[in-house]
């Protein structure tokens, strides 16, 4: 059995077929080609597959693809404005917050969602926003510095 759904990703409308058991992460990567969405733990624990779904960060590995019908999604590919990086992306470069880079798209998306809802987040709010994103290179200090820098540049 196959379903056909229509959804918006980074402002672009897509209509495509999927199996009903397909996770949203697999649909985004394998059917629509958004490879910036990283598949890692595949159980909703690491945050590498974080996307913004109707304004809220979610783990796309534990969302049913079919639930994205009619939804408005933002992936890491949709965060820059053309060639101009989003302040969070630029701040990751400027502070050296990237090591192996696998967790980075998830962190960028979680932090973009945070800065969309809170202009000057407290340390506690930052901690909460990325509590579901795991970096096994353990580079959290630089990531905190990057959020501070991005928040300053956005205000």
């Amino acid at each position, binding site marked *: *059995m196959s*379903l056909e759904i229509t959804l918006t990703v980074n402002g672009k409308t897509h209509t495509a077929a999927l*199996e*009903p*058991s397909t*996770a949203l992460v697999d649909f985004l990567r394998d059917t629509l080609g958004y490879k910036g969405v990283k598949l890692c733990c*595949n*159980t*909703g*624990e690491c*945050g590498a597959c*974080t996307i913004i*779904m109707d304004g*809220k*960060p*979610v*783990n796309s*590995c*534990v*969302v*049913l693809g*079919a*639930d994205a019908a009619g939804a408005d999604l933002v992936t890491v590919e949709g965060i820059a404005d053309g060639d101009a990086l989003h302040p969070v992306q630029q701040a990751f470069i400027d502070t050296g917050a990237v090591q192996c880079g696998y967790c980075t798209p998830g962190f960028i998306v*979680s932090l973009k969602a945070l800065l969309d809802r809170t202009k000057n987040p407290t340390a506690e709010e930052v901690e*909460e*926003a990325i*509590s*579901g*994103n795991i970096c096994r290179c353990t580079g959290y200090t630089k990531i905190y510095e990057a959020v501070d820098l991005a928040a300053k540049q956005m205000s």
Partner: protein
Amino acid sequence: MDYFEPKTVSEALSLLDQHGEQAEVIAGGTDVMVDIKYKDEPGCLVNIKRIPDLNAIRESNGGVHIGPLATIHELEESDIVRERLPLLWQAAHQFASLQIRNTATIGGNICRASPSGETLAPLLVLEAEAEVTFSDGARTEPFGAFFKGPGQTSLGSRGLLTGISVPFPAAGNHAVYLKHAVRGPMDIAMVGVAVMATANADKSALDDVRVGLGAVAPTPIRAPKTEALVSGKALDAALLKEAGACSASESSPITDQRSSGEYRGWIVDALTRRGLAQCWQALTGKEVA
């Protein structure tokens, strides 16, 4: 795998009648998706996420009505939950990551019936009721009767949880939810303890003490002997010690990859004492002497 998106409760119920044990209900999906990937795929998936009006959180009949499709983050963001049901709010706030809280539903947490489900011990302590609906009718039952064992509820394979009613706790109560886990909210609780109490008129004793325990029995449980031991008394160090030991004796924890049963018993003891002491201090303004 067959897949259905019923638009009404009655449509969902007739699908469950038709497909019986083959059917799996999915709402947020944070647990069911993991099962689909790593366990056997169900014969059919009944996605109830698009049934309208099942995610409301509103004041109703001296309490709060919570729709089972309300997400954990919606509970956390709800003024009425934060102000009137702080115990449930604390559990929602310690529930996994923001990404999971944006997806997982309270109904899913309940129907999953994991003994460690974060909202379950608080719901028992709040004396909340489940509205369970079958194709031949609906009834309400206290959550104390709803949980039958790990993963087992009175819904069986044909019922749906269609509402959660939480009465407002007594005015002037204090409540705490304490979770013990290695990695904070991200981790499944080794032990969760919910404590709620009021003080008597001259603040010399605790009244209506309620203790709920998660992850230390086949279902979330209340600790009635501990509640009776402490209710109506002033909390001193000796009573506190006795209450901790009593609470541990009411639990029956298993040993698994997260913790030994013996260790869980010690944590029940410690968190019960901590929760009672916090209630005593908040309600009377005094330290436990």
